[in-house]
């Protein structure tokens, strides 16, 4: 018999979205039992790495407007964002900034005592609310600490969720492995919020935490939900070499320059109006064009790169506003940004795509919501603006938290528990993975997979590369990689690593298929063989459903309210 526990509301994932949802739900009623399940210890989620800022309109009296935030977001998205959703984000955000302040967030301040904001790429007003350059870390701390107030939130630290159990229509529970003991559990619940974050570790050069793998997305996919717009992967212009750790856009927001090997601020050729603060897709493409045309540098590891110059900002400003990246560059690259240029290169940074949801974050299964980077409510379209993601996590964390809590209060589960589904899942992971008998080193397969994604589906893409990539991934999948050497139950990270790898195959395939199908260039998806945006044929979202052989690809309309697509110029 499988061990079983029960909550009213299960929150899978404890990043910004998951924790914000937990607080919103906890406030709905102290009798509501909430379980926050996370494969890392709750406060160690990837969100702690977010650096630069959280977008919101705070200074309307100084000329900023919600409308402008909405338009910047839609324009940044290359008109693929659902405009009602973008509007919801911008309207809800200002309160959330104040709410976080009231919960203890150490926002950076103006001398007057009001919350300060900085410039960020693609905005027409400085509206990235920041806390030094550790905004995600401090937001996580604020939310985690606030969660400590509520007695009805329970934390399942280091529980790896493997599947969603439902009766075809309605949510019933999840299955999970408690890592410390290795015990397989079913967790029953009335509602679920999936907040498992992004999947950036599909790429080997990535700013993400090592735990940001697609297992959460894959879980939804296997449960019958669609993945939407997965071909849109954001490459941040400034990942530092050799680690790929992020140098925040805030560095350019505070006035940093990008330089090519002629010593020119080459962004003047590509976006004279915004220079270094053009949206990320544009800056990343500009860097790659410079490199391809021979105006780049070679890092000592042999990788091509470009230089980021912060020296003119001065020691004081760097210490006060960019202390975190100063630490990172000195420690991990041996360069003090006050004295020297940083070696940077576009790096996998964000997944615009995710589980298909509506404007409320509801998925296609009753009782299941998705929020944060794991969800795709289409607020970012084909290219997210910096600082809009933490905002999204917080807003939809709150919305889904409230809705899922209300649902759990008003609904009782009635159907008999589907033991056979649990048994099937147990068989899939224990017979199929744990006791699998492959003889190829799964870690090497993972390396090959992520390298393939890096090479074949990077900033610039084309048909040949994408198809080669797809072939390679399918080849790797066919190899008998499925085996776990470590046979102990306790804290078996070998096991969880292989399960992560298992999910990578399916999701990588969808990224590549989506990219192959989208024969246009839009936002972060830049094809050298189809260099123009093609609204006539591709102004739609991509959906991918699970199928045993090959994902089933569909399309979904874009919601356009006020802003008709126009050419995107900065």
């Amino acid at each position, binding site marked *: 018999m499988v061990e079983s526990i029960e909550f009213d509301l299960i929150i899978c994932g404890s990043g910004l979205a998951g924790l914000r949802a937990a607080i919103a739900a906890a406030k709905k009623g102290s009798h509501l039992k909430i379980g926050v399940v996370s494969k890392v210890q709750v406060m160690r989620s990837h969100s702690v790495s977010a650096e630069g800022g959280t977008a919101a309109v705070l200074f309307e009296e100084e000329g900023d407007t919600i409308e402008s935030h909405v338009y910047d977001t839609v324009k940044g998205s290359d008109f693929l964002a659902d405009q009602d959703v973008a509007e919801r984000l911008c309207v809800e955000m200002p309160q959330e900034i104040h709410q976080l302040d009231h919960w203890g967030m150490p926002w950076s301040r103006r001398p007057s005592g009001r919350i300060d904001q900085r410039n960020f790429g693609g905005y027409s007003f400085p509206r990235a609310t920041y806390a*030094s350059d550790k905004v995600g870390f401090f937001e996580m701390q604020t939310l985690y600490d606030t969660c400590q107030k509520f007695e009805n939130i329970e934390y399942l630290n280091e529980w790896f969720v493997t599947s969603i159990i439902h009766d075809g229509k309605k949510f019933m529970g999840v299955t999970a492995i408690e890592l410390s003991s290795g015990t397989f559990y079913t967790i029953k619940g009335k509602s679920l919020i999936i907040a498992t974050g992004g999947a950036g570790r599909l790429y080997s050069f990535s700013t993400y935490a090592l735990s940001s793998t697609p297992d959460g997305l894959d879980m939804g996919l296997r449960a019958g939900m669609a993945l939407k717009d997965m071909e849109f992967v954001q490459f941040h212009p400034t990942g530092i070499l050799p680690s790929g750790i992020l140098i925040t856009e805030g560095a350019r927001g505070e006035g940093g320059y990008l330089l090519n090997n002629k010593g020119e601020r080459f962004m003047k050729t590509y976006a004279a109006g915004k220079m270094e603060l053009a949206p990320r897709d544009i800056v990343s493409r500009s860097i790659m064009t410079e490199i391809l045309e021979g105006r780049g540098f070679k890092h000592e590891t042999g990788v091509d790169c470009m230089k980021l110059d912060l020296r003119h900002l001065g020691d004081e400003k760097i*210490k*006060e506003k960019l*202390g975190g990246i*100063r*630490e990172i560059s*000195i*420690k991990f690259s041996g360069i003090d940004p006050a004295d020297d240029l940083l070696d940077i290169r576009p790096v996998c940074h964000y997944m615009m795509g995710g589980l298909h949801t509506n404007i409320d974050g509801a998925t296609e299964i009753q009782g299941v919501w998705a929020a944060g980077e794991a969800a795709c409510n289409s607020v970012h379209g084909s290219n997210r603006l910096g600082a809009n993601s933490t905002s999204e996590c917080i807003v939809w964390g709150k919305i889904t938290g409230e809705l899922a809590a209300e649902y759990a209060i008003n609904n009782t589960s009635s159907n008999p528990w589907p033991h056979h589904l649990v048994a099937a899942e147990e068989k899939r992971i224990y017979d199929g993975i744990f006791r699998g008998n492959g003889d190829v080193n799964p870690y090497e397969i993972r390396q090959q997979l992520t390298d393939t994604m890096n090479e074949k589906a990077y900033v610039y893409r084309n048909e040949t590369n994408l198809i080669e990539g797809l072939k390679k991934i399918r080849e790797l999948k066919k190899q008998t990689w499925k085996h776990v050497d470590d046979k102990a139950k306790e804290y078996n990270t070998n096991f969880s690593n292989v399960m992560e790898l298992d999910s990578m195959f399916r999701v990588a395939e969808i990224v590549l298929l989506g990219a192959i199908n989208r024969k246009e260039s839009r936002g972060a998806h830049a094809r050298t063989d189809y260099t123009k945006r093609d609204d006539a044929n591709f102004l739609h979202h991509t959906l991918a459903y699970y199928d045993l052989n090959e994902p089933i690809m569909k399309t979904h309309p874009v919601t356009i309210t006020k802003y008709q697509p126009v050419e995107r110029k900065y």
Partner: protein
Amino acid sequence: MTQDEHKEGIKGMVNPSRYGIERFAYWLMRLTGLGLLAYFIGHIYETSNILRGQVGWNEFLELTQTTEGHAILAIVIAMCVFHTVNGVRVMLGHGGIGVGKPARPDYPYEPASQNYRHKIGIYSAIVLAAIAMMYGLAVMFGE
């Protein structure tokens, strides 16, 4: 219990190396505190011999007026001076005095509480203890 909790155990408390002089001072403080307590108990017993009259007192005095006795006393003097001076430092520190001001930390992080003021306090406690001990030795053996 130690095994389950994987506590470092007494050796963690006792081992004064690995960390800075502050950890060493912590360790000396304990050691001298306990040493002084032991001496203090002995001293109370020692002085109670006065109740045994002149003969008893002198008998006991002879027991302690030896080279070993003087050496022990010298160590006690040193312990007492270190414990006292360091005690004053520790008390100030515990009250939040001289432990530095909070500020946005800059990499590489140098903890402001581990500052020269307290280091000087510790070194002077050690130096004063040594001087006092030598002075005591001079007085006791100088006759």
